[in-house]
């Protein structure tokens, strides 16, 4: 019989959830979306989505997670079953284990780029690339494994393995000695470094133009459905809802501990990092140093191009450029690591709490599986492996799982019981209007997003629109058709989901449901 861990303090779990939410999207994705979709006016649908989608869904996850934790369940299958009392619900929960794992398979590779570029900033190699205008070349060679470090080892592979060891090292130390401790260090550091850059950017001559581009509202954009869809999507991505990570983290809090205020605090901290810090750095700086005329090109290079090509070049033009580059990549690396550990934990908790394995065995199993799939993703980058993982784990599963959670909470568990559970031990009085929001607005909003997203982007991706049947990819000197690679990769991801469901079936056959922990 095993006693589950608890967070050592209320602040610890708040920082961990905030750390999960604060990631690359806060500093790269949000400013690009805001600048592209109406500037200041983007904040109107964004804040509406924050109130009717983000905050309620975060409350749902915290509440369901704490409830599951009372029965010693730490991941979605067990939590969904025990919360709803419906045996079928546990199979829906498999998305909350596999979904975050799919995100992890590519997220950690991107996270390792940040560690690599922090190193290049520190050694001055990045600055030298800025002077020679070869930053994009450095980045391109790095991610395609052409840049070597020691003994001909690809630099990207070295930093990937290092990042991988750091991640699983933290997870290996457990909830309070690993995840909680790293978040207690990383979160203040993220805010400190972010505020340093925030102040530096605001004191640049001519920043008024940059802020104007970012914040002057274009109200006509509010008439475009795409703007509302993008704002809602951004809330989803940024707040770590619909992944399953909050569900797992919340399962490690005490049964009478507040969830309402804690959840709101994490949302608020994430909002600060995104809107105040993230919204001030990248786009305003790009506008001031590159000029408004180039802004469309700047926005078109996408978030990675902005983060890895544009930002080093921008900081390189400023005094103490190397230091600013180092601060930028270190900030993003810590933001990345606090997010990546949160998305491995649901799978680790699943093996520990549902399957009943020991912590070490669970961590090693997930580490082994991750290493294999991550390497497939690394070498299959040109074949679209990362795009596939991002679509199925980071978009499709996210919206579907979020919708399932909202419906289970308000309609299967029932809003009366759900509301009572949410308010148990609460340190704030949640306005009753949120009962209505949780029951009707959030689920309907989510269903609309899901349908609209499938029509605009989702379906085209699923049917491989834009992939030429004659396109080939070379992976480890093996040349195959891109369509064949993508289809095989999809079948593998499907096999993972099926395997998770088979495990759930077998585990529940042996031990139907756990009793309440006294």
């Amino acid at each position, binding site marked *: *019989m095993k006693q589950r861990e608890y967070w050592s303090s209320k602040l610890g779990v708040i920082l961990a959830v905030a750390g999960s939410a604060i990631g690359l999207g806060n500093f790269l994705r949000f400013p690009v979306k805001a600048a592209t979709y109406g500037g200041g006016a983007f904040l109107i649908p964004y804040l509406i989505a924050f109130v009717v989608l983000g905050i309620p869904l975060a409350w749902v996850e915290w509440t369901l997670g704490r409830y599951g934790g009372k029965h010693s369940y730490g991941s979605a299958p067990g939590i969904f079953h025990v919360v709803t009392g419906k045996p079928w619900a546990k199979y829906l929960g498999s998305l909350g284990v596999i979904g975050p794992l799919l995100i992890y398979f590519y997220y950690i590779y991107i996270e390792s780029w940040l560690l690599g570029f922090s190193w290049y900033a520190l050694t001055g190699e990045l600055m030298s690339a800025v002077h020679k205008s070869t930053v994009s070349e450095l980045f391109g060679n790095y991610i395609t494994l052409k840049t070597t470090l020691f003994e001909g080892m690809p630099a990207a592979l070295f930093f990937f393995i290092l990042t991988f060891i750091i991640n699983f090292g933290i997870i290996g130390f457990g909830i309070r000695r690993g995840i909680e401790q790293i978040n207690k260090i990383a979160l203040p550091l993220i805010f400190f470094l972010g505020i340093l850059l925030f102040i530096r950017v605001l004191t640049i001559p001519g920043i008024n*133009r940059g802020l104007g581009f970012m914040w*002057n509202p274009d109200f006509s954009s509010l008439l475009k459905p795409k703007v509302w869809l993008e704002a809602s999507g951004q809330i989803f991505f940024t707040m770590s809802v619909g992944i399953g990570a909050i569900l797992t983290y919340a399962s490690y809090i005490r049964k009478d501990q507040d969830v309402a205020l804690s959840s709101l605090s994490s949302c608020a901290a994430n909002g600060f990092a995104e809107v105040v810090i993230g919204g001030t750095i990248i786009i305003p700086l790009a506008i001031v140093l590159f000029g408004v005329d180039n802004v469309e090109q700047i926005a078109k290079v996408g978030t990675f191009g902005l983060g890895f090509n544009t930002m080093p070049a921008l900081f390189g033009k400023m005094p103490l450029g190397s230091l600013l580059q180092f601060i930028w990549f270190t900030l993003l690396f810590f933001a990345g690591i606090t997010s990546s550990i949160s998305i491995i934990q649901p799978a680790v908790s699943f093996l520990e709490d549902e399957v009943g394995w020991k912590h070490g065995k669970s961590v090693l199993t997930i580490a082994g599986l991750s290493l294999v799939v991550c390497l497939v993703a690394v070498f299959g980058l040109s074949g679209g492996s990362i795009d596939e993982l991002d679509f199925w784990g980071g978009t499709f599963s996210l919206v579907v799982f979020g919708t399932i959670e909202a419906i289970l909470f308000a309609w299967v568990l029932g809003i009366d019981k759900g509301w009572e559970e949410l308010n148990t031990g609460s340190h*704030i009085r949640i306005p009753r209007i949120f009962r209505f929001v949780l029951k009707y607005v959030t689920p309907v909003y989510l269903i609309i997003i899901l349908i609209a997203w499938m029509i605009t982007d989702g379906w085209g991706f699923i049917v491989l629109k834009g992939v030429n049947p004659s396109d080939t990819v070379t992976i480890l000197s093996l040349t195959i058709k891109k369509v064949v690679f993508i289809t095989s990769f999809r079948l593998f991801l499907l096999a993972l989901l099926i395997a998770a469901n088979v495990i759930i079936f077998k585990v529940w056959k042996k031990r139907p449901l756990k009793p309440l922990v006294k």
Partner: protein
Amino acid sequence: MNETLTPVGFTFMVLTWTAIVVLNFFCFSRIFRDKTEEIPDPMPELDADGK
């Protein structure tokens, strides 16, 4: 949008920042005000005999 920060843009920026800072102050002032005790370490793992 090709201009310096307009009064409307400035108002938007300041109002949004203020709303977020106030929300953070509201939440974290309550979190830090509550003197919550450190939760002790869980009991060590027990074997099958409960030892």
